């Protein structure tokens, strides 16, 4: 039971981060290493703003608004800047070159982060404490964690709806399937890319922001999360929302099971799952069959 709950909480957290990554990859074919930096910026932004807000004595509900708003702003600014300045000139280059560009951006943003916030840890536990705890059977579970699960499910549902039932979603699907054909039908692919990248950046920042109340926000937190999110995305199939959800659940449960049953293999377990899936299905569990282009 504890494994299941822990697994779901962990899965929800990593799903929020991985969703942005998989969106960017699916549409733009960029494996965005800088996503880890979006994550840490989101966490720092939320943590410092919550810290300021809590001193004013206003109601706690405002802190949740801060989490959402701050990540939206951070994602918008960083995503826009990165796409326009660094990525746009490199479209059409090899996928691997784009990975390296985003890797360079990641290195630089990590330092910018340190310049803005210093290297001390930030704490923003107020929302986490404020919502209290609930007993499920013999377990005491934080309400914040349960909200996180709900939030992840909502986000996943919203993403699914957006992709399958909205106009923007149809355009995205067209771009994913065949970029050139979409262009010839009048889709402004450059604009679609920009919007996608910003959305992905916002999701990355959001992942960091919702985590901020649960942990101490420290430099280097993005380095760890990026490989985890990669694992999730690779398991699920790059560019698939359902895949990211299943991938997150597999990683979450694998980690929770490892932590409870055999703590020595915690990190190990996640990557074994990933390597196992990649061996059996190199393109991940949920990937559309791609027609061969000549």
């Amino acid at each position, binding site marked *: 039971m504890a494994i299941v709950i822990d697994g779901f909480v962990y899965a929800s957290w990593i799903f929020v981060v991985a969703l942005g990554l998989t969106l960017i990859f699916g549409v733009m074919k960029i*494996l965005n290493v800088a996503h880890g930096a979006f994550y840490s910026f989101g966490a720092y932004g939320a943590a410092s703003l919550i810290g300021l807000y809590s001193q004013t004595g206003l109601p706690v509900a405002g802190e949740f608004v801060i989490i959402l708003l701050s990540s939206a702003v951070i994602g918008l600014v960083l995503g826009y800047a990165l796409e326009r300045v*660094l990525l746009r*000139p*490199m479209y059409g280059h090899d*996928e*691997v*070159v784009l*990975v*390296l*560009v985003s*890797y*360079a*951006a*990641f*290195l*630089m943003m*990590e*330092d*910018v982060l*340190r*310049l803005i916030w210093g290297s001390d840890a930030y704490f923003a536990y107020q929302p986490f404490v404020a919502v209290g705890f609930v007993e499920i059977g013999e377990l005491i579970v934080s309400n914040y964690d349960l909200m996180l699960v709900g939030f992840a499910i909502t986000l996943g549902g919203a993403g699914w709806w957006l992709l399958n039932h909205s106009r923007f979603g149809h355009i995205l699907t067209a771009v994913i399937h065949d970029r050139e054909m979409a262009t010839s039908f009048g889709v402004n692919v450059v604009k679609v890319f920009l919007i996608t990248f910003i959305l992905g950046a916002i999701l990355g920042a959001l992942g960091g922001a919702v985590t901020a109340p649960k942990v101490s926000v420290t430099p280097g937190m993005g*380095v760890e999360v990026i*490989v985890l999110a*990669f*694992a999730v995305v*690779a398991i699920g199939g*790059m560019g698939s929302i359902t895949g990211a959800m299943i991938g997150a659940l597999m990683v979450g449960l694998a980690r929770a099971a490892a932590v409870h049953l055999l*703590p*020595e*293999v*915690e*990190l*190990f*377990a*996640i*990557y*074994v799952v*990933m*390597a196992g899936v*990649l*061996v059996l299905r*190199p*393109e991940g569990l949920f990937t559309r069959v791609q027609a061969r282009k000549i």
Partner: protein
Amino acid sequence: MMTSDRTIPTITIVAALALVLGFVLPEWVLFLSNVAIGKALVVLGLLLLWRCGVVPFGQALFFAGGGYGVGLLGHYYGITDIFILTIVAAAVGGGLSALAGFLLARYRGIFFTMLSMAFSMILYGVLVKTEALGSTDGIGLKRITVLGWQPEEQFELAMYIYAVLLGMICAVLMHVYLQSVPGRLSEPIRGNEVRVEYMGMSVQRLMHINLIIAGIFAGLGGAVTAFSVGHIDPEMAYWTTSGGFVFITILAGTGSVLAPFLGAVIFEVIRTLAFSYVPDYWQIILGGALLLSIFFLPGGLWSLIAMAKGGKKNGLNY
């Protein structure tokens, strides 16, 4: 083309100069050079893989494998002879990459990059959690001996001479391999695998062999690094270490087997200077250097040298 190939004499001259310089350079420069040569050996392998069109973000796996091979042998069996340790490190790197290669050789592009990263993170996870392997603290090395002789005061110099000689041998071997039939057939893999198959070469087997070669070089790099640093820790297997190797490959370019050495030295210089003068900005500087070379020097620093020599007339146009 072979007649105008002056690579091997150039390597010999560079190595000889490096050896002479070794006697006048201060100890900390020698130490940095050793670390740089350790990295350059790994990058030498990456150069081969880069030509096949794949970029591993997990070469740290074999690098750490070599380093840990050296550390554990000394720690548990008291073996400190530099030659035995070197051979063991190469064997560990080669063995690990032979295993991983069964899977990796089937992948290209982004999947190759991610799978190799996953493998190195598995090793990282194991190293961090296993007490017998030193856990997060790693393991301190015993003093290295050379055929029973223990260099005391001149330790850094001795390691430097060894590293330079090893680097020279590896560069020559890699150069010879790149000129051989399998070496020359590696590059078309990037462009058109079907053609390579039609020429009678199994692409998957060739990839596997190249992975093993790169793994052996990475293992050697790990050994050289471990000798000089005197300590090994799980950080050697972390994905950021692999990122550093890829960084050097891009910075240096893949035009010559000497490029990795140039790249690694420049990388270490940038890193050391940035780290000691502007510790808060050193990643900005590294990232900036990487971006600059991707945007403005797609062929890496080596392309500057090649251009200065007059285009393709340098005999290095593999």
